[in-house]
């Protein structure tokens, strides 16, 4: 399983980097798959409502009403019909890519099983809605879909009489069945929407709208496609003939030729096996996770910064339980915590300057604690020599850091770049542990723990608590968000950074900066 994930991830890393050459990080389609899914969903719903207002739900009239839309009112209803079709195709594409990407990044196991399982159910519902949609046109394709679907269900042998008999001949056609399909086609997307809401329950501030540039581009692309290649029906359904070559929508109906040609016991067994596998995959094998974040109440002042920064809604603020003179205290729900450490990076008590024997902030990762990070920083700093020394902080999901350490480069690993309290930068420089600090991690807008990159930048820019101290010289701090393929960029950046540090005078002893705070200018590569 690990090697499959690695292959999928490598493919996405490359594709994301390639698209990154044309798109700014915020607009990169592969970094907005979930939001694009929502975007296409709303286009499908909007165009569907319009199309439905012209649609005749009688089985014999349905075809004519759609033909009217496509040919008579092509400029509006026809375009809406094409929107309806192509946006649903796009929805399946981005949903499947989203699923694969999360799989490749191993973000479906452990506490993330919930999003995976609910997402799977939503995907099945999208397919049900799409397939019933093809049924409603009641053209030759609809006839094909109706017959193959009902034959497949008949193979279960649970119906007293084969449902496919409805489609035996024109005289056996039953309009009640058609009405049922209309109902399913409308009800299922609504159920999917409710489940999507459930799907997002475990993430804070979910991105459900793509950035405007990407939304506009996708909309225009759909519009051009709809005008250049409008969705059209095939000939009207006629049960007295076998549909000629049917042009399948392979995004929804790719399995149909298999359902039609392979023995039903085999296709049913395969389908059930795949469904069970898809649902069980978060536990195959179960993820061995480090211990979740832990509160040290004696050091928690209830400031709620960790609560504000946790990307996974794992922290709640509850009334104080220890009699300390604060209104609230933080509480971690271990079943939601992904062990990113962003909360520790936000905690005002995670300050390496503290003389406490064991540095214990209000919230911390027991297996990669702030105290341990301070030890690592000190050990690496003691090892560095010469001019242009750089302390690199990086996470395990971004630029690979193996073999990077040298006489002039210290490396300290974090769970996520957001785990780094900004005071550590100050600490490195004030204690002369290095001449400069470089923080690196996932590519921009692709943070494994969602907000690590954004919060780090905001803390350094002093627009989000905890602020980087004013006295940190901006020329001694750099960030590089380059992802897994960024090793070359990191090495180049380190060389340039070291050269510029060599040109600076030795690190000055710490001093207090009076006056108002100004936003820091961090050099961003």
């Amino acid at each position, binding site marked *: 399983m690990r090697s499959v994930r690695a292959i999928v991830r490598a493919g996405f890393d490359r594709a994301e980097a390639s*698209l990154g*050459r*044309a*798109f*700014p990080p915020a*607009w990169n*389609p592969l970094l907005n798959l979930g939001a694009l899914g929502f975007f296409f969903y709303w286009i499908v719903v909007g165009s569907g409502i319009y199309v439905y207002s012209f649609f005749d739900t009688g089985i014999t009239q349905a075809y004519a009403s759609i033909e009217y839309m496509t040919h008579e009112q092509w400029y509006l209803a026809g375009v809406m019909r094409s929107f309806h*079709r*192509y946006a649903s*195709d*796009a929805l399946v*594409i981005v949903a499947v890519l989203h699923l694969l990407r999360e799989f490749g990044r191993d973000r479906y196991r452990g506490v993330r099983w919930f999003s995976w399982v609910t997402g799977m159910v939503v995907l099945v519902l999208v397919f049900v809605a799409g397939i019933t949609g093809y049924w409603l046109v009641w053209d030759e394709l609809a006839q094909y879909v109706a017959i193959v679907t009902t*034959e497949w269900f*008949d193979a279960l*042998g649970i119906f*007293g*009489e*084969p449902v*496919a*008999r409805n489609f*035996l*001949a024109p*005289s*056996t056609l039953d309009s009640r069945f058609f009405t049922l399909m209309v109902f399913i086609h409308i009800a299922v997307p609504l159920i999917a929407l409710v489940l999507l809401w459930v799907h997002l329950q475990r993430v804070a501030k979910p991105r459900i709208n793509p950035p405007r540039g990407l939304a506009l*581009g*996708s909309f*225009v*692309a*759909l519009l*051009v*496609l709809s005008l*250049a*290649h409008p*969705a059209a029906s095939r000939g009207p359904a006629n*049960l*007295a*003939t*076998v*549909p*000629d*070559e*049917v*042009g*399948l*929508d*392979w*995004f929804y109906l790719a399995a*149909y*030729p298999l359902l*039609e*040609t392979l023995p039903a016991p085999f296709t049913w067994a395969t389908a059930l096996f795949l469904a069970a596998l898809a649902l069980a995959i978060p536990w195959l094998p179960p993820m061995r996770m480090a211990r979740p974040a832990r509160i040290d109440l004696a050091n928690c002042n209830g400031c709620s910064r960790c609560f504000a920064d946790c990307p996974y809604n794992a922290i709640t603020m509850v009334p104080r339980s220890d009699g300390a003179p604060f209104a609230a205290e933080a509480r971690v729900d271990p079943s939601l915590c992904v062990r990113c450490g962003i909360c520790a990076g936000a905690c005002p008590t995670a300050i390496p300057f503290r003389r406490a024997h064991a540095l214990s902030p209000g919230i911390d990762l027991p297996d990669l604690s702030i105290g341990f990070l301070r030890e690592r920083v000190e050990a690496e700093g003691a090892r560095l020599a010469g001019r242009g020394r750089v302390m690199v902080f990086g996470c395990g999901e971004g630029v690979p850091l193996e073999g990077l350490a040298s006489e002039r480069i210290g490396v300290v690993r974090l769970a996520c770049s957001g785990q780094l309290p900004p005071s550590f930068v100050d600490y490195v420089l004030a204690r002369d542990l290095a001449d400069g600090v470089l923080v690196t991690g996932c590519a921009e807008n692709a943070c494994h723990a969602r907000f690590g990159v954004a919060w780090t930048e905001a803390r350094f820019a002093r627009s989000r608590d905890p602020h980087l101290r004013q006295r940190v010289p901006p020329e001694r701090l750099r960030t590089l968000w380059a992802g897994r393929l960024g090793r070359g960029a990191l090495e180049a950046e380190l060389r340039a950074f070291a050269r510029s540090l060599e040109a600076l005078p030795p690190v000055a002893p710490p001093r207090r900066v009076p006056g108002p705070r100004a936003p820091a200018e961090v050099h961003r590569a």
Partner: protein
Amino acid sequence: MPSPAQWAGQVLFYAVAAGVTGLFASWPSWSRLPPGQAQITIAFAHGGARKEACRKLTPEEIASLPAHERRPSDCRRERVPLRFELVLDDRPLLARTLPPSGLSRDGPSQLYEKLAVPSGRHTVTVRLADSGRASGFDYESRFELELRPRQNLAIDFEPDRGGFFVR
């Protein structure tokens, strides 16, 4: 702000994405039935005879039953399987034994089968045994058919309509 080359890259991406979406939304097309063929669909659901005839209960037996279960005869519900045969132009094409449905084997037997046949003139003979007899058939029909390419001809069965008929 993206550079002109980046804008061009984005346009290219959207063009490819829209092209792929539009293309596979209806292509390649698929057909299971080879050209020039027609199809005979034979589909029906019919219950065979009861496996055992009803047995008259003796007065003693009736008296021994609880009051609300007293009945004049005892009938096992299980049905016999059907035997079905389809012969096309004197060539046996399909022969099936159709078990009754249901857990207690008391439901109707079902058949749903699609047969690809060359278009043109054919004689189709269909036979069904529903009485449990070991040889011979209870129903037999012979149809002279002229099948067009891609025609779907449905053969149904209803005892009330005299057995097999073409839909």
